[in-house]
Every structure is written in structure tokens, then in C-alpha cells.
């Protein structure tokens, strides 16, 4: 690499040269554009700077938030929690693979039933105590045993609570093989706490690079960097990180543009194009696994008729929804909950197209009596859910399907409407692996089986794929499963949404992660001020 080019790229990172000028100068030096661009991001990544007070403006906080990881259900506690607490495993922001964090390495038996995790040594909690294997076992048990109040209980069901200490290693024995266990242990609830947090769940003592300084739920949270963190030099560049709770979207944008914070989450797709014009801001969007859905209970009339379900699926104008609801910040769905953000994505399944003739045909075939089909909606499910339902209604009515939209209150939507009413609008955040996504919502006995998809053949394939260590075979099974759900399921999945964050330009580093907004909550660890 020419020395001149390297100096130039450093200049860009320091803000002395615009990206466009750099590309122009690189071209003049005879460097192809892709290479120059790669060089530029390489320089930015390679030069983390220490110091500064990093302020995050976050949606999703409330005065009821707790520091107990078992109780985390929204953005702010999760995002703040990443700074002070650590899990055994995390997922890589680039390839989605499971990477060691507090676990150093792991191995599985050939049937994926018995797992051994080597736990990292020399890690200390913020109270000065050294982390031991007992802390790890107690933490995992607290989230999985029968008296658990944890939000992770749903995913821990497939794991059970058979955690044991084996010398300095963690031994996990499963009832059935599960090749994805490391991914499950990357769940954000599973923070390792002293004695598992049994004595004081909300003490906020963890092993992260920052320790808690201020905790005012619903207002702000501050954490400062500790000296000599085991992962120092890889994460945690700021002197301190502050999370401000700003739930109002307009207020959040105002806070970013007036310089009161350095990064915000959940930018409204409606205003993102206006925000883009500000020269000192960047929009960080990435296609995630979250999806906006219309869910019908296939055990309830009239949705127990597959022709009717197909009619509804053909009557969704997916492109229009992505355009109008997400303003293009998303991608069309194909009626099964997996997209390219997952490993082993079955890309050969053909995309279902908007086809009103087919919709009318299947509606006629279904022999439906023409009484109104009621779709319940609320913006609690996702921003724009009410508009999406109305757009869906219009295309349905054109095809002769008597769809009616009923607005429900936002308050209590998840407990009174979702998973209760036979046809409603919902949102799924996605999971790290296909197995987990199918296990939480499409397995016969799953608590959140919100389409009542109880198909023994599908369950069998799911279990078979879960224990299958051969990836080719595994992908074949996932293709069959995806196809089956797409053609027979009660899930109508018009679109996957992007995570849209915005930041000031001087924030550099890994700003995005397909697993979640704000670099999956790690933004305070993975970025720095240039």
C-alpha cells in the first residue's frame, strides 16, 4: 500500500478529508474503488482511540426498569446491561457465528447432547470477587429452573437446567441433541452474576468493561470504565458510557441534532431521509431478523382452511408495504420467519408474489361465507401497524376478501390481543438461529406458538435438524421446513425490518449488528471517538 494513501485514509478518519475526496484521490493514484473503500474502513477499524464520555439516546426505557437481567424486556436495560454484564458467548456482528466471551472454548459430543464449556480464568466481578464456575452454574440455573421469573425461560426450555461444574468446566447435559447450544447461551438475559444473582438479583454487579456509576431507571444510566478488564484492548474504549432514556421519537432526533447525545436508536423511517441531509450525522441501518407479521390461528375458523390462508397470503402487496411502512428500510418476506440474516438460509424457496387473481381463486375455493374477517391491529405491535393493516385491507377487498380492520389499545396489546385473538398484527424480534426461531413459535408445545402451528411432521424435522451436525443435511431439512410453513402456515409475513440507528460522524467502529439495533446493544463497547 502506498504511504500516501495510508496518510490520506487517516485524514478521513480524523475528519480532515471527506470520504468522497478520498475516493477521488485514491482513483488518481490508480487504486480501484472497492479496494480504496476497504482500505478506508480498515484504517478506521484499526485505530481505536481511548477516552471520552459516550452518550446514547435510547428508546425503550421506563422507570420500572430493573438491573436484574432476568427482568429485561426492552432496549434500555439490554443496552446498558451489555456495558456492565457479560454472557458466556456472543454472536459475531459480521458472520453471525457464536464467539467465546466468558467461555473460552467449548466442545460437544457427537450427538450434541453433552457439552463442555471451558470457563475463562482471571475474570473479576466489579465487587472484587473472582468469577468461578459456581457463579456460572448458579447464573444459568436461576434463569432456567422451575421457580424462575426470567424472560429467558422460554428459550431455556429446550436446554433444561442440567448445568454442572466439572472441575473448572461447565458441563451441560441435554435431553435431546442441540447443535445450537452456544447460540442459546448468547441470550442477553444470561449475564453471569456473583452466585448467579440469587442473593441480590438487581445489584448490577457484573464482569463487563464498565461498572455502574448512576442508575436512575427511566431517566439515565451511567457506567465508567474499569482498569485491567480481561478483554482490555478489544472492547470498551470510552472513559464512561451514558444511556439516556428518550422515548419520544422527535425528542430523540432533536437530542442527536442538538448534540446532547452521540447516537440514537429507532429512527422513524418516515424522517430518515430528512436526517440523512445533516452533514455531521450518519444513518446506520442493517437488515435484521425482526419481522412484521399478520398472524392467524390455524385451529380457529375461518383460518383453519388453507385456501383462505393462501388467499390472504396472495393478497398482501409486500413491495408496497416495504415502500410505504418501512420507506424502503426493509425487505419483503416470504411467509416463513427466516431471511438471509440467518446461517443456512434456504435461498431456493421461491418468493411469493402479489397476485390478486390467485387470491380471488383461493378465496372462492375456501367456500368462506363472506362474513367479515377481522384483523386486530395496534401500533404497539410496530410503528405503522395500523397503516399496514389498512393497506392489507384495501388489497384484500379488491380481491373480494371481506377483511375488516379493528384498532386495539396499545396498552396491554401483548397480553390481551396477541396470542389471544385469532387474527392480529404482531412483531417478532428474530433469534440468533433458525432452530431457535422455530422452537419458540412453531413447535407444537411452544408457549409463543402464536399461529397454533402444531404439526408433528414439522416437530420431527425440527428435532432432527437440531441434533444434526452435518450442515448440508441440516440446510436441506430447513428448506423443507421453510417451504411447509410458507405454504400451509398461519403466518403471513410481508416484511423484515431494518434496524435504523443514527450517530454523529466522530463515532467510529462496529456500529451495526444484524442481531439487534445499536450493534446488538454492544455499541458502547465496539465504538470509539475518532
Amino acid at each position, binding site marked *: 500500500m502506498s504511504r500516501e494513501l495510508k496518510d490520506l485514509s487517516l485524514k478521513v478518519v480524523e475528519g480532515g478529508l471527506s470520504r468522497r475526496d478520498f475516493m477521488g484521490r485514491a482513483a488518481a493514484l490508480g487504486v480501484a474503488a472497492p479496494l480504496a473503500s476497504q482500505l478506508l474502513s480498515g484504517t478506521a477499524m484499526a485505530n481505536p482511540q481511548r477516552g471520552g464520555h459516550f452518550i446514547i439516546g435510547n428508546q425503550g426505557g421506563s422507570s420500572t426498569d430493573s438491573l436484574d437481567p432476568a427482568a429485561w*424486556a426492552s432496549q434500555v436495560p439490554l443496552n446498558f446491561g451489555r456495558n456492565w454484564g457479560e454472557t458466556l458467548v456472543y454472536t459475531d456482528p459480521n458472520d453471525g457465528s457464536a464467539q467465546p466471551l466468558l467461555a473460552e472454548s467449548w466442545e460437544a459430543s457427537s450427538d450434541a447432547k453433552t457439552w463442555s464449556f471451558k470457563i475463562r480464568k482471571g475474570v473479576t466481578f466489579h465487587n472484587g470477587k473472582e468469577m468461578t464456575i459456581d457463579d456460572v452454574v448458579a447464573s444459568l440455573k436461576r434463569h432456567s429452573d422451575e421457580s424462575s*421469573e426470567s424472560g429467558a425461560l422460554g428459550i431455556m426450555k429446550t436446554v433444561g437446567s442440567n448445568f454442572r461444574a466439572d472441575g473448572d468446566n461447565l458441563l451441560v447435559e441435554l435431553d435431546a441433541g442441540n447443535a445450537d447450544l452456544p447460540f442459546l447461551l448468547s441470550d442477553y438475559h444470561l449475564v453471569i452474576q456473583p452466585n448467579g444473582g440469587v442473593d441480590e438479583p*438487581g445489584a448490577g454487579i457484573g464482569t463487563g468493561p464498565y461498572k455502574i456509576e448512576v442508575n436512575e431507571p427511566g431517566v439515565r444510566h451511567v457506567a465508567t470504565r474499569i482498569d485491567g478488564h480481561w478483554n482490555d484492548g478489544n472492547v470498551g474504549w470510552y472513559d464512561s458510557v451514558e444511556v439516556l*432514556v428518550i422515548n419520544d421519537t*422527535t425528542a430523540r432526533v432533536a*437530542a442527536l441534532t442538538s448534540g446532547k447525545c452521540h447516537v440514537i436508536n429507532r429512527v422513524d423511517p418516515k424522517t430518515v431521509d430528512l436526517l440523512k441531509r445533516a452533514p455531521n450525522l450518519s444513518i446506520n441501518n442493517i437488515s435484521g431478523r425482526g419481522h412484521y407479521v399478520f398472524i392467524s390461528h390455524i385451529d380457529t375458523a375461518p383460518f383453519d382452511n388453507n385456501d383462505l390462508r393462501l388467499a390472504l397470503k396472495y393478497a398482501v402487496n409486500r413491495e408496497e408495504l416495504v415502500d410505504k411502512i418501512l420507506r424502503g428500510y426493509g425487505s419483503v418476506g416470504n411467509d416463513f420467519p427466516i431471511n438471509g440474516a440467518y446461517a443456512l438460509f434456504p435461498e431456493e424457496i421461491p418468493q411469493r408474489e402479489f397476485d390478486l387473481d390467485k387470491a380471488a381463486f383461493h378465496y372462492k375455493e375456501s367456500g368462506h361465507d363472506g362474513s367479515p374477517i377481522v384483523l386486530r391491529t395496534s401500533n404497539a405491535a410496530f410503528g405503522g401497524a395500523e397503516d399496514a393493516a389498512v393497506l392489507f385491507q384495501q388489497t384484500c377487498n379488491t380481491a373480494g376478501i371481506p377483511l375488516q380492520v379493528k384498532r386495539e389499545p396499545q396498552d396491554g396489546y401483548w397480553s390481551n390481543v396477541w396470542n389471544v385473538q385469532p387474527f392480529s398484527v404482531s412483531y417478532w424480534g428474530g433469534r440468533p438461529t433458525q432452530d431457535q426461531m422455530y422452537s419458540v413459535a412453531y413447535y407444537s408445545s411452544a408457549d409463543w406458538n402464536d399461529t397454533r402451528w402444531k404439526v408433528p411432521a414439522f416437530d420431527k424435522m425440527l428435532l432432527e435438524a437440531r441434533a444434526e451436525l452435518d450442515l448440508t443435511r441440516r440446510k436441506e431439512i430447513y428448506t423443507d421446513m421453510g417451504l411447509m410453513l410458507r405454504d400451509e402456515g398461519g403466518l403471513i409475513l410481508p416484511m423484515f425490518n431494518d434496524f435504523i440507528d443514527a450517530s454523529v460522524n466522530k463515532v467510529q467502529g462496529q456500529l451495526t449488528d444484524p442481531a439487534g439495533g445499536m450493534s446488538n446493544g454492544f455499541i458502547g463497547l465496539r465504538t470509539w471517538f475518532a
Partner: protein
Amino acid sequence: MNPVVSLLLQRVGIGVLLILAISALLFIGVELLPGDFARNFLGQSATPEAVANIRKDLGLDQPVITRYFDWLGGVVTGDFGESWANRSSVNDQLFKRLSNTLFLAVVAAIFAVPISVGLGMVAVFFRNKLPDQMINIVSLAAISMPEFFIGYLFIFFFALLLGIGDGPPIIPSDPVWSFQNIQLIALPAATLVVVVLAHMMRMTRAAILNIMDSAYVETAELKGVKMMTIIRKHAAPNAIAPIINVVAINLAYLVVGVVVVEVIFAYPGMGQYFVDAVTVRDMPVVQACGVVFAAVYIILNMLADIGAILANPRLMHPK
């Protein structure tokens, strides 16, 4: 006994009874809301097991009456208990939030009350002339705009375009009651002033006008007393009772009704705290906030009543 003292005692007694009744109503109301705490708190990630465990842990399987009296027992000793959601003391958070809210309300009131009463008097002086009409049009326009819109306008012009005021989030630093914080809350306080101004101004105007039509004002006018002196010396003192009442209602609104302004400025006040708690049915917090809000209303109304009585000799010496 001095009639004023006995009146005061009577009012305080009624106030305490009212607060008790309100706390019981609140308890029943939250109980009647669909969905319980455990389910709302866990949201989309609720599993039946976790819900059952939380319910048991908090004693939600106990009958409503038992839980109400347990709670009441704590409140009588000055302890609002601990939040179900984050298991922290309600007292700590409540008084911090209340202090923030009162600070914002008091600053807004210090500006709003003299301005609106003054403008009301000016409007009477220029009755049906240009200044009166201007004051009316502007204040009606202000009251017709929703407060979040006024708030956004202020943020846009003063915080973003001109850069002379603080936009959201506005988090007062300790100690709350300081000059530095007054500067910080300029925009939310100004928003509140605009919101309550018109109501107080128009009531002042109407009350004074009402008295201006009476015989003794006419007499004063015939004696050749100057118009402004009549308003100041004869009309305003007699119009003080209704003005005190409308001021009290607006002050109460400044404390309990500011949740919209708190949200758009991300200001950590009581309203936000209350709404967060209601969303997940965090009963101890809902109850505590409800009692405080009720107390604010009752105390302000009591003060208004007493003020009105003191301002009116006929009420001071009832037959």
C-alpha cells in the same frame, strides 16, 4: 374557636377522607384493568411459568382486600413500599420525581400567574379595543394548539435553529432548586406558561368585567376616578375569589397534567413515572403517585377555598 381555624380543620379532615377514598378507587381501578402485572411486565416474552412465579413471589394470589390493607398500613407509617417492577423503594424515586415536577410547576407558575392576571386587567382596560382583541386572539390561538406541538415548535426554534435553549433530554442536576436548573428548564416551563396562560387570563378578564357592570363601579366612574384605578382598587379585589379558583386549578394542572410536556422534553417528572407504572400495572407506584396527585389537587383547592373566604368578608362572618 376562631371560625377560620375550625374551617381549616374541617377542610383538612375532609381532605384526608377524600384521599383515602381515592386510594381505594385507584386500587379497584388498577385491579379492573385487563391483564395483570406479571403478564404486562414480561410483555411479549411472558411464559406461563414465569408469570405464575412472579405472581406468587409478590403475593398476588392474596385477596384484594388483604393487599389493600397491607398497603394502607405501610402508607400510614410513611412507607409507600417497594416497586414490583424493579424492587426498589418507592419513596426514594417518588420524592425525587415530585421535587422535579414541583420545580418545573413553580417556575412556570411564577411567570404564568402575574402575566395572565396582568394581561386580564389590561384586556379589561382596553375592552373591545385593539389590545383586548389582540390579547384574546393570541391567547386563544395558544390554547388551541396542543401542548406537544408548542413544545416541538420551541425545541425547533430555540434549541435547534437558534441554539439558545436546552432541548430534550432535560435532566435537572442536583440540587434541583438552583438557578442553573431554571435556565435548563426554560423551554418546558415556557411551554407550560403558554398552555395555562389563556385560561387564567380569560377568567380574570371575565371576572373583572362582571364587576365592572355593577353599580358601585359606575358610581366610582361618575366620581371621576381613573379607569385603571377603578380596576385595581375596586374591581380586582372583589374579583379575587374566582381568580384564585382558576389559578388553583391551573397550578394543580401544572403538577399533575404535564405528562405530555415531560415526554417530549424527556423530563424526569411524576407524570412520566406514573404512566410507566400504569403501563405495567406496578401497583405500589401507581398508588403512591395517585395519592400524591390527589393530595396536590385537594391541598390547592383547599387553599383556594380558604383564600376566597378570606377575600370575602361575607363568607368570613357567616350568619
